[in-house]
């Protein structure tokens, strides 16, 4: 039905897509996996019309088509569900659903809100979402927004004669486990009306949902695997060109931590908006993983430790000192480092180079009376570039132009070079390809060995289980369960889920 025939795409200096052949059948769910830089996003952009191929053909029902922009692709039934927050927050749900296609409800440019609301309700019903279409989008939860996003794409059904192809780009990244289940159920139901291309970094999800899986590497399709014969490690092998074995999470490097000392201790701490008392302790060398659904209170704890949030009551001791004033400066001064989830926004400063980013948190140490010693900064940067094999042409490289994994290495070296011994990692592997993920896992073990205590909010449960010494399961702001995770005696996924939901 929809087909790409030896499609080529070149950018200055990069051959992004090399003779890609791709097809999708009516009602099929096709998975698309590959490391970052493998060409997935370029391929998606070609499919939904944002890029025009340099060679090859796009065929719909066997006939060649050409899309100059996404709108033309939409006219032929190709829609895109973007990763996170691609709805405009200050508009209402219905406006977002029909953005760019208001014409059907307008006469002389005047909008008939009643008609639009009715139509929006119809779309929302398709995704089983029962909300008022006049709700402002910013008031919705992440999961609701994802469904609205899907409802928006499904308007193609009414507008387009032929078949629909819907791209789902990392649709699960902000969803909790049960929300993911609901979404998958919905997608399967919707195959009666549309075909789906599903892109995700989460191999388990891709394998669960997809009928066939395209594996990409270096701008090429390495393999097409049918669900029946799909095998996670085989696929990962094809993606990275090597095996991802049990040592993926570096469990063999997990060593017992020092229980005699405490880096910080929370006793009966109550956070704003939550009634529960929290008790947490971090020891040197310990990886403490906070597990819970979105909104379970993991972030609030991280933010409290980092000093961005002040507890209402309770006792919070850091390195033997009771904390009263809470602010990031103080925390940083006490050796707390923070690797934020929004790497591009909070992690690195795009537009500044590597050494400028690395010393941003420790300018006091590299300056005298406010004057920076740039020579020492550069030396530091060169040192860490080689230590972590950061792929940057030099310490002068703009961090905005580095790949996600290298950006994360810069962020990590920013804190490690500053001697932080309490590291807060918020989704440190989000959006990274497998190779880069492994680098991050190695760095976590390295830090552990150095006696750094790590509080981790992991991207997946497997990651949490694999990496941690201790797992704390949170639900609705309350600590539900603690697990001790010695290598070989780790809790199972089920153990965790049981307490999360």
């Amino acid at each position, binding site marked *: 039905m929809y087909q790409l025939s030896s499609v080529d795409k070149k950018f200055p200096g990069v051959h992004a897509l090399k003779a890609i052949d791709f097809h999708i059948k009516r009602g099929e769910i096709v998975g698309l996996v590959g490391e970052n830089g493998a060409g997935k996003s370029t391929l998606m952009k070609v499919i939904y019309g944002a890029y025009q191929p340099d060679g090859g053909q796009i065929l719909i029902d066997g006939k060649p088509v050409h899309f100059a922009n*996404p709108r033309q692709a939409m006219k032929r039934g190709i829609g895109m569900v973007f990763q996170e927050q*691609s709805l*405009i927050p*200050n*508009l209402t749900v219905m406006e977002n659903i029909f*953005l*760019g*296609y208001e014409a059907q409800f307008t006469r002389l440019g*005047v909008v008939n809100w009643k008609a639009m609301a009715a139509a929006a309700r119809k779309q929302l019903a398709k995704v089983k979402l029962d909300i008022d279409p006049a709700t402002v989008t910013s008031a919705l939860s992440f999961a609701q927004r994802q469904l609205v996003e899907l409802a*928006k794409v499904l308007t193609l059904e009414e507008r387009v004669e032929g078949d629909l192809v819907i791209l789902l780009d990392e649709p699960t990244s902000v969803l909790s486990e049960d929300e993911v289940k609901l979404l998958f159920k919905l997608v399967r139901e919707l195959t009666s009306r549309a075909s789906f291309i599903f892109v995700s970094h989460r191999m388990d999800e891709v394998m669960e949902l997809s009928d066939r899986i395209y594996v990409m590497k270096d701008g090429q399709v390495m393999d097409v695997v049918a669900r029946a014969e799909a095998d996670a490690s085989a696929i990962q092998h094809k993606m990275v060109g090597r095996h991802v074995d049990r040592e993926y999470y570096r469990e063999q490097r997990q060593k017992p931590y020092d229980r005699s000392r405490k880096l910080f201790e929370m006793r009966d701490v109550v956070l704003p908006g939550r009634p529960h008392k929290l008790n947490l302790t971090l020891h040197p060398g310990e990886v403490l993983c906070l597990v819970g659904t979105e909104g379970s209170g993991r972030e609030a704890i991280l933010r409290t430790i980092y000093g961005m949030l002040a507890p209402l009551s309770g006792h919070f001791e850091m390195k033997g000192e009771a904390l009263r004033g809470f602010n990031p400066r103080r925390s940083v001064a006490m050796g707390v480092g923070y690797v934020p989830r929004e790497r591009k926004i909070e992690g690195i400063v795009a537009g500044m180079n590597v050494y400028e980013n690395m010393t941003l948190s420790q300018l006091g140490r590299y300056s005298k009376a406010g004057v920076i010693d740039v020579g020492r900064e550069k030396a530091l940067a060169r040192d860490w570039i080689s230590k972590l094999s950061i792929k940057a042409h030099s310490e002068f490289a703009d961090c905005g132009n580095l790949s996600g994994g290298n950006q994360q290495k810069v962020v990590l070296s920013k804190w490690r070079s500053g001697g932080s011994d309490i590291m807060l990692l918020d989704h440190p592997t989000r959006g990274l390809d497998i190779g880069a993920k492994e680098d991050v896992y190695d760095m976590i073990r390295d830090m552990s060995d150095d006696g750094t205590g790590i509080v981790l909010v992991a991207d997946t449960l497997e990651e949490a289980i694999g990496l941690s010494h201790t797992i704390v399961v949170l639900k609705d702001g309350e600590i539900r369960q603690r697990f001790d995770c010695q290598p070989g005696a780790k809790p199972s996924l089920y153990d965790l889920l049981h307490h999360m939901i």
Partner: protein
Amino acid sequence: MKLTRENVIRWAPALVLLGLVVLFAAINPAFLSQRNLARIALASTPAMMVALGVTFIIVMGSIDLSMEGVVSLCAVLFCLLFLRLGGSLGAGAWLAIPAILLCGAFFGWLTGMVHVRLQIPSFMASLAMGFVGTGAAVLVTGGDIVRIEDDVFRALLTWRILGFPLMVYIAAALVLLAWFIQNHTTLGRNFYAVGGGEELAHASGVNVRRVRLAGFALAGVFYAIAAIFQVARLGQAESVTGANLMFVAITSVVVGGVALWGGIGGVLNAVVGVLIVNVIGNGMVVIGLPNYLQDGLLGVLVIIAVVLSTDRRLVSFAK
């Protein structure tokens, strides 16, 4: 309506306006006289039109600083055309009105083109186009004043209904029109879409460039209306007719609760903002404040108004 934090903040500009009115009226009861209210309304009308125009631009997340030039140019062209067409509204000179609205739209569109096509940030593009507008007004008039004596046209100022001049009613109608455009037309909603997330709007198939151009052209129309009101109010036009409108209009819009970073607030906020600024201006004289204190006090009051109407929980930082 519940007395929640959000509601208090949303209504803060209106409450500030109310507070100012009460304050001034307490010091000098004449402030609340119907005639003075009419005076404030009259003084507000041209600034109101400019504020409406620039609100659309600010909602888009852009800024327009060209209003002084556009108003001056439109005012002098309007007068010249009006006189050329017979100098009386009855005798065909009414044609000058649609002509000048078109002219305003064209100039606004031009600003938009400089901004969109040359990819110059709107701050600089509109600033430079403002110079061009004022310069063109100087070129056209050679620096002279152009007067309009037509009584029919001046009825905008002199004809009073229930104590308020005719132009106040027309301005009110235009506020409604602007509100309608904002809330009930595709274009108006697209302003919010662009202001809320330009790239997302583009990806959804909104022609962002066209929306921006339309926004600047629409603002130009409102500037042209402001020019006509300014001429109706003063009976004359010159190359400085639009002077001071830039800071007044933008201050008003922000004081009314429109966020400079786009997407938040709207026409009604602008209306309240213009009224706040004009109430302060009128009130300071009415209560007999020494003139050298007026600029400082205006500044302080504006800060208070903005502080009260900003939700500090939603803003992570201001620039």
